[in-house]
């Protein structure tokens, strides 16, 4: 069931309990091994996030945690999902490579068709790729390769539009972009290069622009369920703008996970993304950037 005007996805998520979570290595600017994770607090925060999502109307599936894989909690990086297809990530850092077989096993066991990216390109899944208005907007430079986007669109049967990230602290797209509904999204243009800004500007009819403080508080790393935005933090000015726009804000602290550079979005993977198939009659890739008044978004299918 979806709300009219909602995203059309975000009712079913895969999450992994933080039994083995910790900062055991450093692969992003947020990670410092000397910072200790309070595992009990992490468990409470993770349970809190699950409860908030379920209360908003979402279903949460659980992946079995694995010893030695502390970042398996960040299921957003498992891969990309579209209409029952799953393309597992190819991680940039070898530390996360061993997570892949566990994700693949889960998706196979749950009836997804698993398609592999070619060797030699990195892509970190939904952490770097979010669906909006019929396309996947996809970040590249720090974790994902621009060269992955061609193969990804073929494997997913959906357009994948790369955007270059420009701030190493915001190394995944989901730290700078968050779709809210069919027309609105949280955007942090100062975190993208000039071409990327133009691409997002053309794609998002009504952007809600985040400032640097919002972004560094991981506000974009939120999960939207219907008209409720589940956020790790929300500075009051941003909260007022979101509420004025008709959204409910639910803040659920996940600061133990921010120690590893991830928040609400990173801890979840939407399983119900299904961009509409576009037949030969669909608009071909044009010579001009897409107009902001582009084709109306398809009806939600989730």
């Amino acid at each position, binding site marked *: 069931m979806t709300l009219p005007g909602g995203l059309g996805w975000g009712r079913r998520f895969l999450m992994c309990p933080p039994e083995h979570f910790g900062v055991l290595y450093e692969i992003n600017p947020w990670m410092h091994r000397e910072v200790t994770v309070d595992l009990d607090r992490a468990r409470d925060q993770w349970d809190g996030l699950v409860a908030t999502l379920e209360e908003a109307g979402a279903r949460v599936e659980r992946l079995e945690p694995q010893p030695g894989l502390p970042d398996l909690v960040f299921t957003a990086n498992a891969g990309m999902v579209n209409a029952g297809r799953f393309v597992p990530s190819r991680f940039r850092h070898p530390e996360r490579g061993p997570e892949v077989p566990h994700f693949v096993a889960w998706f196979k066991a749950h009836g997804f068709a698993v398609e592999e990216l070619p060797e030699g390109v990195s892509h970190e899944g939904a952490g770097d790729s979010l669906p909006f208005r*019929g396309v996947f907007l996809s970040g590249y430079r720090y974790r994902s*390769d621009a060269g992955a986007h061609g193969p990804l669109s073929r494997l997913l049967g959906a357009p994948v539009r790369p955007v270059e990230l420009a701030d190493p602290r915001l190394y995944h797209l989901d730290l700078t972009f968050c779709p809210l509904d069919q027309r609105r999204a949280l955007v942090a243009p100062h975190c993208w290069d000039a071409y990327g800004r133009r691409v997002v500007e053309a794609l998002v009819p009504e952007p809600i622009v985040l400032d640097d403080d919002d972004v560094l508080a991981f506000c974009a790393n939120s999960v939207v369920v219907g008209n409720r935005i589940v956020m790790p933090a929300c500075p009051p000015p941003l909260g007022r703008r979101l509420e004025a726009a008709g959204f409910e804000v639910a803040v659920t602290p996940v600061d133990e996970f921010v120690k590893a550079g991830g928040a609400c979005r990173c801890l979840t993977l939407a399983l119900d993304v299904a961009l509409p198939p576009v037949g*030969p009659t669909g608009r*071909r*890739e044009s010579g001009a*950037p897409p107009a902001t008044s582009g084709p109306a978004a398809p009806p939600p299918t989730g």
Partner: protein
Amino acid sequence: MGRPSEVFEVDGHIIDSLILAKVLDVILDAGADYRMLDVEIGRTNVDPSRARLEVTAPDDGTLAALVAELQVHGANRVATGEAETVAAEADGVLPVGFYSTTNLPTQVCLGGSWVDVENPEMDCGLVLTPEGRARTLPMHRVRKGDAVVTGCSGVRVQPLDRPRGASPFEFMTSEVSSEKPKNLLVGQVADRIRRAKAVGGRILAVCGPAVIHTGAGPCLASLVRAGTVDVLFAGNGFAAHDIESNVLGTSLGMPLTDRPAAEGGHSNHLRVINEVRRRGSIAAAVADGYVASGVMYECVTRSVPFVLGGSLRDDGPLPDVLTDVVEAADAMRALVPGVAVALMLASTLHAIATGNVLPAGVETFCVDINQAVVTKLTDRGSHQALGIVTDVGLFLQTLSDHLA
């Protein structure tokens, strides 16, 4: 060698995402240039698009930096792989599927790095030596067991730099035409000769008998005497009429001065050929004083190397004429290294034969009263040739004036 270049491919929603625009900007910002080889736009908005572009950089360092930078944006170098070779199975026979060369600067991928082909020449095979060098070899010189490159993988040719702006080549951008201010063109040819000589380049003159018939012999002789011409290719006719005009004052029996036509002049060239044959060579005829002036005389006395290639309809021929055409072409090849400027002077057969053995980097000026000769030369692959449609006698006179 020209400027280094690589082929890149970029794939995905490269238009809507402005990736293609960005890639092209990155190339230009780096001071490099690109040529779009092909673009495939996806049929629907789900189909990714694909573009292949050839990037030419000012130097290897810039290209290497670009390879790294473009990779970030998903534009990857197209792998070419190693050159494949097959051993020639017999003398004078290339393997099936041999790589047929152009006259452009060419490189072969050996052990992961690009090696320059030492002597670019069109319509040859490419042979790799055991020491890792690459040479063009005409079919007849291939020996059994030579490692001959087959197929196209691992071989790349570099287009000559496009003329830009006010470069010295600027005037070479248009087709051959008779509608050109001749004095200006000849002045620019003189300029190119001077520039080439200044850096030790050699000047080749390829001469047809019309040079002598039009009375330009003394002019060309003075260019040889002045050291402007370093190598000369011609046929039996040119040399015979040059000697005839200097010994008897006629060219094919026609007086070159205002004297009336001589009785029996039609046999004059036969008589001088006969006299040179009696002496054994043009050099011997110069040595004993029979030939005391002219182009061939200047070549002999100044030790300017020449090749006289024979043909079916030759009278005599002069003893210096190489009547085995394969041998003649090889003799011409031996004199090509170092040639920077070639002047094709009223010669059709020898100009085309010379065009066949010249690398594309040799600036070639084809001077003929007949536009078709120039067209013929470029149609046979010597695209670097600039045609000047004019009387060769007037051309040489004007060139001498410019060089004086």
